[in-house]
């Protein structure tokens, strides 16, 4: 009888590992930028390219940087969540229009609504590389000192908003 117990135990352990593996997301790569200063940038604003937006302007504020594009399908999933968040005035959301045509980006915001205080155009994706962007959408929580505190890979959901982002924002604002 005891002979059959060991294969069974091994099977259960292996099945356990595989079961946990089923629920892991291989796309979620831990960012080395967490806890590091957000890379500084100075880009033309989407709606008014004569004006610049510099990340330095945001010193002293807790803010969200949301990387989006008009061609990005998952951005449409998170869009209602961002719209609702922007109406609550808890934290300013700034957009980084990643590898997008200006007209297409503006048309998409007009059609779906604009949750951003403003968006900056990263036409050639250079700033995206600085931020380690590899899939749009991505959202960064940046604190008053300009340090990246959290990175959401993929769409912001109600769950990630209420479990991670908003509690973190409240904590950072209180500092």
């Amino acid at each position, binding site marked *: 009888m005891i002979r059959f117990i060991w294969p069974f135990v091994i099977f259960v352990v292996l099945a356990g590992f595989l079961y946990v593996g089923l629920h892991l997301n291989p796309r979620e*790569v831990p960012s080395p930028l967490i806890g590091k200063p957000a890379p500084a940038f100075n880009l033309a604003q989407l709606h008014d390219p004569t004006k610049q937006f510099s990340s330095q302007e945001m010193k002293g504020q807790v803010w969200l940087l949301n990387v989006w594009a008009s061609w990005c399908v998952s951005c449409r999933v998170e869009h209602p969540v961002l719209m609702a968040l922007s109406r609550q005035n808890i934290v300013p959301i700034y957009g980084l229009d990643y590898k997008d045509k200006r007209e297409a980006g503006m048309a998409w915001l007009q059609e779906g609504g604009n949750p951003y205080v403003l968006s900056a155009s990263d036409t050639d994706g250079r700033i995206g*590389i600085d931020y380690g962007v590899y899939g749009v959408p991505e959202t960064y929580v940046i604190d008053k000192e300009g340090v990246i505190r959290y990175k959401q890979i993929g769409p912001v959901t109600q769950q990630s908003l209420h479990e991670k982002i908003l509690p973190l924002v409240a904590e950072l604002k209180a500092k």
Partner: protein
Amino acid sequence: MKKALLLLFCLLPVFAYAGVAKDLAEDPVLEKRMIGLAENLRCLVCQNESLASSRSELANDLRQEVREQMLKGMSDQEIIDYLVSRYGDYVLFDPPVKSYTLLLWYGPFALLLVGLAGLILQLRKRKSKIPEAHLSNEDVKRAADLLNPSKDL
């Protein structure tokens, strides 16, 4: 006139050749170095493809970035450090030995040791189970007789 035309036609392929795949062939040595480096880097979009072979947008951009940094005179190690600082160790196909990769690097050897220890224990246990045969003088003599039958003849 005819000869001039003929000459012009002969020269046409020369003009047609200019400007093809300029981006790639601009500096074959640099390109080779870039590909050599990119083969050991992971494309983050398609994960199991290298940066050298991927056709994704991001891989294109990153290859361009690597080319430009090489032109600036940065060493391979500096470029790798630059990419790791943005995308993490995950971009490396060859993960560095760190506290959290110890299991990855040495786990198989640990398993091998556990297996060997188990094997040795098992063999020892089996050895003690086999009873030592005790031969009486008579048995020894019988065995000797059987082994040397020629003595009797």
